[in-house]
């Protein structure tokens, strides 16, 4: 039923119905914003990119071919994010923006233990650091599947590559993340340190 509604809303959007499109926006804005924020790690930039993504989607709705709509939105968002990162990379060669407040991940923990909270904060920083070391393609695959929990087919649609390519990228991303986090073993959970001790 949801799929039917989605297609109907898309059809109404093609006819220029803003209300119908904004119902789609409400449905998917969290998903788009989360992926964009994890790619650019700058909250204000992520908001701008997300807004531009939906404006662009509304204007290009005629080019939507009937695949997974969320994947189509994420594809636009991903390209906009990569454009932003390229622009930032060029600008950082000549200037340093000290005003940017970078987004920080947090790791869930129900223990209510201050010591555990501090350790989790360190762990989150380690994860961020290691994810920064990944290429954009690898990071996007890892964010989509391991963090946001998307399926391979939807991720493949979002990147416009085959499922096999997504699996390869994810495999390499996980291997590199594993190597990276192993450099700070004292921060790792027991489940990850166990095998180090054995060897």
């Amino acid at each position, binding site marked *: 039923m949801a799929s039917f509604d989605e297609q109907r809303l898309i059809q109404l959007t093609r006819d220029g119905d803003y209300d119908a499109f904004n119902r789609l*926006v409400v449905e998917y804005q969290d998903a788009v914003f989360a992926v964009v924020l994890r790619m650019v790690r700058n909250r204000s930039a992520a908001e701008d990119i997300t807004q*531009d993504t*939906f404006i662009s989607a509304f204007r290009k709705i005629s080019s939507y071919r009937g695949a997974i709509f969320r994947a189509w939105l994420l594809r636009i968002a991903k390209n906009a994010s990569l454009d932003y990162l390229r622009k930032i990379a060029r600008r950082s060669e000549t200037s340093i923006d000290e005003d940017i407040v970078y987004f920080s991940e947090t790791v869930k923990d129900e223990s209510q233990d201050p010591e555990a909270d501090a350790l989790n904060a360190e762990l989150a920083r380690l994860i961020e650091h290691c994810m920064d070391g990944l290429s954009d393609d690898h990071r996007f695959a890892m964010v989509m599947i391991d963090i946001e929990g998307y399926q391979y087919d939807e991720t493949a649609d979002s990147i416009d590559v085959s499922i*096999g390519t997504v699996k*390869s990228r994810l495999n390499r991303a996980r291997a590199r993340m*594993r190597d990276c986090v192993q450099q700070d073993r004292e921060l790792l959970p027991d*489940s990850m340190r166990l095998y180090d001790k054995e060897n």
Partner: protein
Amino acid sequence: MVRNFLNRLVGRKDLSIDAVNAFVEGKASPDEIQLVENLMRDNTSLERDLYTQKALRSLLGRIEKIESSRSFSVTPEMVAAAEAHDSLLSRVTELFATQRRLALAPAVIGVIATVGVALLTIGDVTGIVDQSSSIPGDSFSTAAILESAADGSVSSTGLAGAASNPANADSSADMIITEKGSSAAAATAAPAANSAPAAALAPKLNSDNDSVEVASVIEFPNAELVGPSGGSDESEPPSIMMKAPAIDLSSDADDLGSIAGSLDDGSPIQQTQSGSTTPSDSSEADTDSGILSGDDMSSIAPKDELPYAQNTTFEPVSSNNGISLPLWQLQASLAALAISAIGAWAGLRRSRGE
């Protein structure tokens, strides 16, 4: 091959990426579990790697979900503002948006142009295609560059530079037979040679049907310059460039002096198909009057009275059998077309969000 490379990258042997991913995600089928367990028995480090990845995935799953802090609803004003700031490229993109295949048109044009450049270059190098020279100095071609680079000699476009460059002055002597339009090349070469320790001899040869001008540049210290007399004809035979190897100029100084005197009197130079050249005497000048046609080329014989001429052989760089085209102009145009078409295609893809 790629899979093997990936397996080597992570230190695994013949392990399916699908099976590894499924195992790490806890979604492996019994067959995949069996496959992974067999491999783990063979490689204990693999077992550690996979369980570490499993724990890492579990850790990544514990990362807090993100919710948007505000609404991203779209209003007509936002869309209007975005359209107002639309670039020209985006407007072109919209033209292609209705028909996806049309968006490939720039890519196809780019590929065709690239292939065209490649074919022209190959044809030029192999001699199938010749540069048609309709304006002075446009006889540039890849083949001529390669020839010059290999021999250390200069082509017709490099006449002035060769004559004025002492480094080139004693390396070789060039004889160039060009079509009508290239007379300016010889003309520009002559003054340059005059200022350098060299002489440029460029007698004009005319005929009733075919007319070519011969610009013979002989680098020699203290020699006298005899420039071309210009000239024009209706016919435009394909250009021919002939090159002579280095000659011992010091031993032939007297002979060259006599050549210069002979040419001052209007005597033409005769050439042979085999590539020898010599100034003719006055009687031959009366006979041929400096005419050098295609047929005449075969009848020109070397003269023994000029010792340097015996050592002067000429190699035709281009052949009359080739296809004559404005080669470098085509190459440059197609290359520019290819670059702009591929750039347009990439821009279209990006602005379409692909």
